[in-house]
């Protein structure tokens, strides 16, 4: 069998040379705590790949291993075709990292934060000066170049952190919860910047616990829970595989709240949450009519499209963000 395969053909369904990041059975333990319990991941060049999951799912641990700042406990991992265990500095020279918490240099100005960071990569002074000007523009911080970091708003700091991660023109960008804690406007501005990078061909790996963010940004994602991968696909694939087209949300007066079983014959599936029922159905309006016709009196009802939140609920029985 093996001899019959032409030279250079992919073995066992894996196209090793293509993936920017490839993990097989990747594990990470902190003492007795297993944060990542054997995951397989392939990230193709040019795609935006997402890790979706609640806090403690193992997303950040995985990101830190890919960023070569956390030795893996088991399994194999290759980043840009190299082994993070042996080639950490060489890999880090070609990737950009946006950590979960901003760690800008408070003793330096906004511009110096970009220029000196560039020097850590061994880039010449002249080059980083030009690059900093370009990145300040990109992050809409040109007017704030001389300010100290402390004077910036949360959104500006985040933009500066992202700008900083681009100083070495990375082939791969790692973003750990890029918009956590930002207001909606700041988030949209950030997403816009990430789209631009995607158009320029920068491969991105994003972790998030926001479903809308994952749906907006990611070409493909994995849902992580308890250190393992629960599902994998594009947002649309995952929704069609694990959920129905629409969802009917019903809230009842606690006194007159029916049992879930009573609603089940009206929908494909029913999820009971503390404050509401979710009825999964192809046609939300019709299900709503059926439910009211059957004599149920909800306080409020809402028909919406299925989201990754529903996928997550289906896979784990829990909501992503409490």
């Amino acid at each position: 069998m093996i001899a019959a395969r032409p030279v250079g053909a992919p073995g066992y369904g894996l196209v090793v040379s293509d993936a920017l990041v490839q993990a097989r059975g990747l594990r990470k333990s902190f003492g007795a705590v297993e944060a990542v319990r054997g995951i397989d991941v392939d990230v193709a060049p040019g795609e935006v790949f997402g890790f979706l999951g609640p806090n403690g799912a193992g997303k950040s641990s995985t990101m830190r291993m890919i960023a070569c700042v956390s030795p893996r406990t088991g399994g194999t991992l290759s980043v840009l075709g190299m082994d993070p265990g042996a080639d950490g500095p060489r890999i880090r020279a070609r990737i950009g990292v946006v950590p979960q918490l901003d760690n800008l240099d408070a003793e330096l100005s906004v511009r110096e934060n970009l220029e000196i960071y560039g020097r850590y990569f061994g880039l010449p002074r002249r080059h980083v000066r030009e690059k900093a000007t370009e990145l300040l523009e990109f992050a809409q911080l040109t007017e704030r170049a001389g300010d100290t970091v402390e004077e910036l708003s949360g959104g500006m700091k985040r933009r500066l952190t992202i700008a900083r991660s681009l100083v070495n023109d990375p082939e791969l960008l790692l973003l750990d919860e890029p918009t956590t804690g930002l207001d909606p406007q700041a988030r949209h501005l950030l997403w816009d910047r990430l789209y631009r990078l995607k158009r320029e061909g920068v491969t991105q790996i994003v972790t998030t616990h926001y479903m809308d963010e994952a749906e907006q940004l990611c070409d493909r994602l994995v849902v992580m829970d308890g250190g393992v991968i629960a599902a994998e696909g594009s947002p649309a694939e995952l929704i069609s595989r694990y959920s129905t087209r629409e969802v009917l949300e019903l809230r009842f007066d606690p006194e007159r709240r029916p049992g879930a079983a009573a609603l089940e014959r009206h929908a494909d599936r029913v999820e009971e949450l503390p404050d509401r029922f979710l009825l999964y159905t192809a046609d939300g309006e019709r299900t709503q009519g059926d439910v009211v016709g059957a004599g149920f009196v909800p306080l409020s009802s809402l028909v919406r499209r299925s989201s990754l939140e529903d996928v997550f609920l289906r896979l784990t029985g829990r909501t992503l963000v409490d």
Partner: protein
Amino acid sequence: MSAPTVPPAPQVWRLLPAGSYAGRARMMMVRSAAASRRTWLAFVSGFFEPLFYLLAMGTGLGSLVGDLPGPDGQPISYAAFIAPGLLAASAMNGAVFDSTYNVFFKLHYARLYDSMLATPLGPVDVALGEIGWALLRGGLYATAFLSVMAGFGLIASPWALLALPAALLVAFAFAAVGMAATSFMRSWQDFDLVTLAVLPMFLFSTTFYPLSVYPRWLQIVVECLPLYHAVELMRGLTTGVVGPGLLAHLAYFVVMIGIGVVIASRRLEKLLLR
């Protein structure tokens, strides 16, 4: 000389894997130089402390004390006696401050080193870069203080020129060990231990009077302290009493540097690369 308590060399080199050093520690110093432009006052103040001591003790107290026996037994003025001691102590103080308080803050509060490790820089670059900066700063202070000593006529020999590289060596050793110690500290309270170690050393390591005032058992204790070796080294050079004994003092600091750098790098790796 106190006995080194770390494992022998072969193990030592395995503790510094190639992946933790990008050979770019200099860039950390570029960063420190840029940052210090904002905090120049703290930077400058480091020069005045030994100067004030020299004025207060050397001229003030010195007028009551008169002459003391120098390294070779010949009497020298009190100011000429304590000046090399103050030079050694300022090299120690500057290096210890930089490598303890400042490093602790950057490590645990500013998360500065985390951001650096996202670049090709490794823990060894960080350790060497920070130690190097402490060294550069110590070197500037030492140069300034030596000039003041020359101005006051407290330098008796051209050997004093070597006091500058010697001060750098001393600063390097204290910075390396200070940084290694900092990597074990968990809270600001632990820094009381630094004061507890540094202040008595400053007072009792023959900075202000010769070793002969102590009973023999206490002399042995003092002879184990690093600052004692620094003071004797400086005093030998600025008074021009140079002998093979100075090499033993040098060796003390070379060992201290080796131990400090290895422990600091190894501990930083453990703290940063979880």
